[in-house]
């Protein structure tokens, strides 16, 4: 994940230099987005990992030991990062269209590298599977699993390729981000059926990530349609 974040940052700054965006302003925007993304990722992890009653009891009793075992959820990071970036862009008065053009296509690359980290660590694993390319996980001893992290990494690279083709033409503000949200939410919604770590929480017949996928898909479609009307 760390390699993904820093490789992405390097590529974003390189692209920003090409389209004449200020180095200092971009650093500020990226730092605020990263902070907000880490906060969002941790917050969503805590919300989906602990039942609300247990969490409330811990907070009321002042037991904050759970913070040392905090993990991260990508969707929390994505939403936190987008909100942080919007605030930072307004503060630094940067052109949304230009920043979007140099940031969004590299998000799936960072995510792809992050998923390879998941594959090596054994987290975010798939269902029980014995076919070709099956992997072992530290979290499910003695069983082989579907390499869902690898599949997601490959699909993220495909999304990056689509976005790099898409930014060749001049697009309205938030258009590239909306396309990314649509593509990734479809991918994530589908891949959730192949996941084996059900500890991430579910509501009715869908997992938390699938509900977020549905919301982000609708947001992406609305943004894309509104911009097309304009």
């Amino acid at each position, binding site marked *: 994940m760390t390699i993904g974040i820093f490789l992405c940052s390097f590529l974003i700054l390189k692209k920003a230099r090409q389209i004449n965006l200020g180095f200092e*302003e971009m650093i*500020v925007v990226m730092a605020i987005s990263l902070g907000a993304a880490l906060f969002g990722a941790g917050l969503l992890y805590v919300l989906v990992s602990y039942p609300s009653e247990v969490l409330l009891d811990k907070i009321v009793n002042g037991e904050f030991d759970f913070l040392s075992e905090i993990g991260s959820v990508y969707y929390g990071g994505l939403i936190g990062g987008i909100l942080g970036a919007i605030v930072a862009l307004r503060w630094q008065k940067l052109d949304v269209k230009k920043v979007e053009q140099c940031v969004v296509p590299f998000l799936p690359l960072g995510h792809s590298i992050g998923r390879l*980290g998941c594959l090596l*660590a*054994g987290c975010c694993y798939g269902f029980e599977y014995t076919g070709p390319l099956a992997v072992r996980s530290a979290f499910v001893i003695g069983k082989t699993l579907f390499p869902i992290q690898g599949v997601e990494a490959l699909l993220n690279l495909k999304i990056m390729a689509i976005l790099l083709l898409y930014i060749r033409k001049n697009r309205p503000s938030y258009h590239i981000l909306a396309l990314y949200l649509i593509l990734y939410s479809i991918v994530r919604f589908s891949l959730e059926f192949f996941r084996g770590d059900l500890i991430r929480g579910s509501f009715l017949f869908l997992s938390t990530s699938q509900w977020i996928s549905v919301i982000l898909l609708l947001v992406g479609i609305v943004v894309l349609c509104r911009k097309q009307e304009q």
Partner: protein
Amino acid sequence: MAVASLVLGICSLVFPFIGLGWLSCIVGIVGVILGALGRKNVEKKGMATAGLVMSIISVALGLIMWLACAACIGGIANVAATAA
């Protein structure tokens, strides 16, 4: 801002080595923001750049220390499972 960035950069470089990776990330990110803003002042650009670089390194180290535990535990257990 340049001085603040330098101080935060130095402080946050220490945290990963005492097991406070998450604190290093928070302090490092603040240091990065102050360093970038401090670079706009021509007189203190050098100091701000030093603070910026140290803060970026501390964020990287903090993230590695924060996330490496899970990877190490996973790797060791995976090796154990394979050996069994």
